[in-house]
């Protein structure tokens, strides 16, 4: 917009470090055009560079993959069990063990002697028991071998039939004897259950 020459001069004079020698016709170098900008409170920002969206996608995928790989590694480590030697007792129990000590009365001398003698007797008794059972087993196996030899003397065919493997033995199982015999015609009680039958 065309300003009056007065206003133009006014503006030029207001600008601070303006080389006022421009007004002077003697000066011959080019004008420097120094000027003051308005107050800036921070460093000027970098220019925004527009990146290809494909590259952005790639970068995100790479990050995802990295995280997934690390998760897989952790899971693998979880599955491999710790060797037993490295196990430490539960930390909570260690803390709590002191609170849970039992108040035991000191054993009398007679009690201690009695226990000592019991242990000795038991040692001898169990050893004799073990030897007896071992002897019986050895005798039985020896006798079975003798029987096979006798059978062989009689007929080879019967002997060959006798030394055949019997795979049905592998499926044999037996649960041991109990304290009391089973009750005959025992009515088994019902377990606990929630009645869900509808009542009309």
């Amino acid at each position: 917009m065309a300003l009056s020459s007065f206003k133009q001069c006014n503006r030029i004079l207001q600008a601070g470090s303006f080389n006022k020698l421009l007004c002077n016709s003697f000066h011959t170098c080019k004008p420097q055009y120094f000027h003051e900008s308005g107050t800036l409170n921070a460093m000027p920002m970098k220019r925004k560079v527009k990146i290809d969206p494909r590259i952005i996608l790639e970068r995100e995928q790479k990050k995802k993959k990295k995280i997934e790989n690390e998760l897989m590694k952790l899971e693998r480590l979880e599955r491999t069990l710790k060797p037993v030697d490295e196990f430490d007792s539960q930390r909570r129990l260690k803390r709590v063990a002191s609170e849970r000590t039992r108040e035991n009365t000191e054993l009398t001398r007679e009690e201690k002697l009695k226990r000592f003698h019991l242990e000795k007797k038991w040692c001898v008794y169990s050893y004799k028991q073990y030897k007896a059972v071992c002897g019986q087993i050895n005798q039985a196996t020896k006798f079975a071998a003798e029987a096979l030899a006798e059978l062989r003397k009689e007929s080879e065919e019967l002997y060959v039939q006798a030394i055949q493997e019997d795979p049905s033995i592998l499926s044999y199982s037996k649960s041991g004897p109990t304290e009391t015999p089973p009750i005959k015609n025992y009515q088994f009680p019902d377990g606990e259950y929630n009645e869900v039958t509808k009542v009309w």
Partner: protein
Amino acid sequence: MSSSRTQAVLAAIPKLIKHRPSCLVRASQHRNYSQSSAAKTTEATAEKWGLAGALYLERLPVITPKMTRLEQEYKEYKLQQEVEQSLLSEYEITKKEEEERLAIQKKNVLDTPLHLRNIPIQTMQDKEELWSKELAQFTPADRETEADKSNDMRSTDRKLDQSLVLLLKQVVDGKEWWYLPTMNYTPGLSMREVAEQALTSNCGTDLKFRVFGNAPSGYQIKNYGREKREETKLNGHKVFIYKAEYRGGPVIPNEDNSVLDYAWVTPKELRQYLGRTTSRVLNKFIIY
């Protein structure tokens, strides 16, 4: 048996069991042990034996044997020691806390307001009473059965803490005698099948049992007297005994086979029924 057949059979054996040399040496000392059957038939003076299969049917023990005094004392000592060396459990701690709380409550009964007195909480003591009541409702069966008291030799309920063996009373050569169920060998069967049939033919097919393996557990050689030897031209007969487990079912003695009676006998009572040699033979493969 032709020699070619035996050779074919021998070739088919993948691995022979290794007999302990001592028993083979002893066996060969008594008899002319020869591998080939051809040599056997030429030796007319070789001893001939009849073959038979027997079944040692065992009803295994149902209840644990009674503890001796030493075992009882040791068990109590060990349980005591285990308790002494252990830490307090959750249950014991809560029980202790409740007892303390109750004691405090009793002291400060007058201090607590009316609406907070005597709140019914299910304490550990109540729970214990409940559990002991529930246990009292169940009565286990007696360890000594009726058959024990009446000494019924035919029932399997006798002496539940020991194993029982089936013995049959048979008439052989006009004499009655007790023995395991036996049957003479019939050609075409394996020895195990002979033993199994010895039981089913003499005691009925309702019996359920299980034989362990194809090999015999023991054997017994019975020599004939002079008359029988001349009659049958055999020196005696060999009985091969197979061990079996009794699974259930009744014993029905077959009177056609001249089986008069049967009895379920403990190993210690065997001597009363069988002769000295037979009970000695059977003791060799009994495991008490």
